[in-house]
C-alpha cells in the first residue's frame, strides 16, 4: 500500500515538474535558449497568488488568474528588455543573461517581500480522499495538479497543432529564416511563447506551493532545475516529452527517497544519465540528423 501511496505522491510531484517543464520546453523549442529565470517566475507567481488570497482575501481562482496575468506581463517584459536585444548573439550569452535575470528576480523578491518564509495557503483546500480504510490517501491538491497538467498538455498540443499562432510557433522552431520569409512575425511569436510559458509558470507556482507550502525568494530555483532536467529527460522541445519526463522524474524521485533519502538526488540524476546515454535526445526527442 505504501508503494501505491508513493506512486500517487510521485505522480503529483511529477505533474508540477511537468507544468514547469512545458514552459521550459516551449521557450527552448522556439527561442533555442535555456531560460534559467523560469524558476523565479514561478516564485513571483506564487507570491502574487499568496498576497492576493491571503492579504486581500480574494478567492483562490482569482488569485491564480491574477498571478497568471502578472507573470505573463513579467515574462513578456523580461523577453523584450533582456532577451530580444540578444537575438543574434551566441546562445551562451543569452544563457548568462537569463542567469542575471534570475539573480535579479530573486534579489528583488528578497527586498520586496523579505526573507522570512511564508506558509502558502493551498488554492485547493486541505481535503483528501481516503480509500481502503484510510490506507490510501489522495489529496485534492494532488488530484487537481494531475488534472491541470493533463488539461494543459492537451490544450498546448491542440494550440500548436491547430491555431494560426500555434502553427507559427512550430514554423519558427523549425526555421526562423524561412518562417520570416513566409510572413510570420517571428518577434511576436517569440513574445507569445514567453507569455504562455510564464502563465504556465504562475499556475505551476500556485500548485507547487499548494503541495509544499513554503514560500521564500529562493523557492523557485530548485523546481526550476528539476523541471529543466525533466524537459531534457523527455526530449527538449517536445510537449508530450516534457509531460512524460516531468512525471517520470517525480515518480523516480519519490521512490529513490523511499529507498534511501541520503542519495535520492544522486539516484534521480543517475537515472537521467543512463536514459540520455541510451537515448541521447531524450525519451521522446527527435534525433536530428546532421547534414554534411
Amino acid at each position, binding site marked *: 500500500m*505504501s508503494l501505491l*501511496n*508513493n506512486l500517487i*505522491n510521485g505522480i503529483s*510531484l511529477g505533474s508540477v515538474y511537468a507544468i514547469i517543464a512545458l514552459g521550459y520546453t516551449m521557450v527552448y523549442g522556439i527561442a533555442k535558449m535555456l531560460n534559467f529565470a523560469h524558476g523565479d517566475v514561478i516564485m513571483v507567481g506564487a507570491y502574487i497568488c*499568496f498576497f492576493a488570497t*491571503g492579504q486581500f482575501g480574494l478567492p483562490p481562482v482569482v488569485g491564480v488568474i491574477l498571478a497568471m496575468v502578472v507573470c505573463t506581463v513579467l515574462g513578456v517584459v523580461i523577453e523584450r528588455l533582456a532577451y530580444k536585444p540578444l537575438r543574434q548573439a551566441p546562445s551562451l550569452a543569452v544563457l548568462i543573461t537569463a542567469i542575471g535575470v534570475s539573480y535579479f528576480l530573486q*534579489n528583488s523578491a*528578497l527586498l520586496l517581500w*523579505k*526573507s*522570512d*518564509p*511564508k*506558509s*502558502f*495557503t493551498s488554492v485547493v483546500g*486541505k481535503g*483528501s480522499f*481516503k480509500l481502503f480504510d*484510510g490506507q490510501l*490517501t489522495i*489529496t485534492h491538491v494532488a488530484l487537481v495538479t494531475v488534472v491541470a497538467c493533463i488539461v494543459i498538455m492537451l490544450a498546448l498540443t491542440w494550440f500548436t497543432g491547430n491555431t494560426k499562432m500555434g502553427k507559427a510557433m512550430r514554423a519558427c522552431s523549425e526555421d526562423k529564416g524561412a518562417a520570416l520569409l513566409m510572413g510570420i512575425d517571428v518577434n511576436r511569436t517569440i513574445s507569445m511563447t514567453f507569455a504562455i510559458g510564464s502563465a504556465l509558470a504562475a499556475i505551476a507556482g500556485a500548485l507547487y506551493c499548494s*503541495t*509544499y*507550502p*513554503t*514560500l*521564500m*525568494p*529562493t523557492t523557485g530555483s*530548485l*523546481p526550476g532545475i528539476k523541471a529543466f532536467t525533466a524537459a531534457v529527460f523527455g526530449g527538449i522541445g517536445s510537449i508530450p516529452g516534457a509531460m512524460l519526463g516531468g512525471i517520470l522524474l517525480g515518480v523516480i*524521485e*519519490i521512490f529513490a*527517497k*523511499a529507498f534511501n*533519502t*541520503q542519495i*535520492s*538526488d544522486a539516484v534521480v540524476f543517475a537515472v537521467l544519465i543512463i536514459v540520455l546515454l541510451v537515448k541521447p535526445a531524450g525519451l521522446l526527442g527527435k534525433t536530428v540528423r546532421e547534414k554534411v
Partner: protein
Amino acid sequence: MKKMRVLSLAMAAAMSLSLLAGCGGGTSSEPSTNPDSGSGSSTGADVITIGGIGPLTGSAAVYGLATKQGAEIAIEEINALGGLQFALDSQDDEGATEKAVNAYGKLKDNGAKIIYGCTTTNPCVAVAAETYNDRYFQLTPSASSTDVTAGKDNVFQVCFTDPNQGKTAADYIKENNLGTKIAVIYNNGDAYSTGIYTAFQAEADEIGLEVVAVQTFPDDTNADFTVQLTAAKDAGADLVFMPIYYTPASLILNQAKTMGYEPTFFGCDGMDGILDLEGFDTSLAEGLMLMTPFNAWGEDERTVKFVEEYQEAYGGIPNQFAADGYDCIYAIYEACEKAGITADMSAQDICEKLIATFTDSSFSVDGLTGTGMTWGTNGEVSKAPVVVKVEGGVYVTQ
C-alpha cells in the same frame, strides 16, 4: 568573433578602472556608514564597533536577519543608557564560508573590534580560525557545533551546542515518558541537524529509548516528506523527534495532518519561529513540544519589552535567533563594563581582556534565553534548557 572579444575586454577594462577607483576608497578605514544598522545615533571616537556576520541574502537570510535585528535592539538599548557606546556593522555572508571570511576582512577594514557571528555553523568555523589567528574576540549567537569553539580560546557561544541538545532531548523524552517508540526525521545535509541526531541516538541507546525509524532528508530538497512520514507511521512511532529548522518542520506538520498521522512531535531550538510563519495554520502545531531557550510569550518584564520593541521595529514575533542575538550584545556589553574596555583599545587587547572576563567564574549574564549564563574555557555556554508546548497558538513552558 574577434570583435566581440576585443569588446568584452574593453568592457572589462572599463569595469576594472571603475573598480580600482572603488578600491582606493575602500582601503582607507573610514567609519562604517551602515544605513540600516539603526545604531549609528552616536558617532565619534568613543564608539566600539562590533562586526556582525550572517546571511542577509540567500536561502538562510531569515536566520541572519533575525540575529542582526535582535542585536540592533540590544545596541539601541545599551546606547540609550549613556555608558559604553556600540555600533553594529553587519556584513552579509550569504551563508557561505568564503563569503564569511571575505566579510570578516571587510569588517577589519571598517575598524570592527569585536566579532559577533556568524549565524550559521560552517561559516562560523572558518571565521573562528581567522579570528583565532588575528586575536579578535568572537561571540556567536547561533552556530552551535562544537567545532566552532574547539581549540580556539577566543570563540564563545550563546546557544546550546548540538550534542548538548540531542542528549538533553533524549533524557527529557525518557524522563517524562513522552513516547515509547521514537522516530527521527533529520536533515542529513545540515551540520546542526546531524549533530543533534548523532548525540540523541547515542544517548537513546544508553538510556534504553527505542528508536524505531530514522529518516533523513537532504539539505536542498526539503519539499516532500510523505516518504519519511509514511516510514515513521509504518514503524508505529508515537513520537517523532525533529531536530530541524522550522521551515521544513512546517511542511512535515502539514503533510502529517493530510495523512492523518498524529504522533507527538518534538523539536529543538531551530523549531522556534514556526508560530510566526506567515500564513501558517498554527492549529497544525498544536501539541508540538520543543526545547527552546526563549519563549516570546513569556511574562517577565524584559521579554515583554523586547518583544514589544521588536514588533515596533521590524514587525512579527522575535524567535530565539533574535533573542540569542540580543543576549550576545548584552553579554559583550557586560563583559566590556566588567573588564573596563574602552574604544581606544586595540582589538587584540580587547580580545584578551574579554576572554579573561568570560571565563571568569564570577561573570554571569542574565538574558532572554537564560538567567545566570556562564561560560567555560571551551567557549560553551551553560544555561538551563526549557521545554515548551504549543497550546492555543502560544508557548506554554512545561
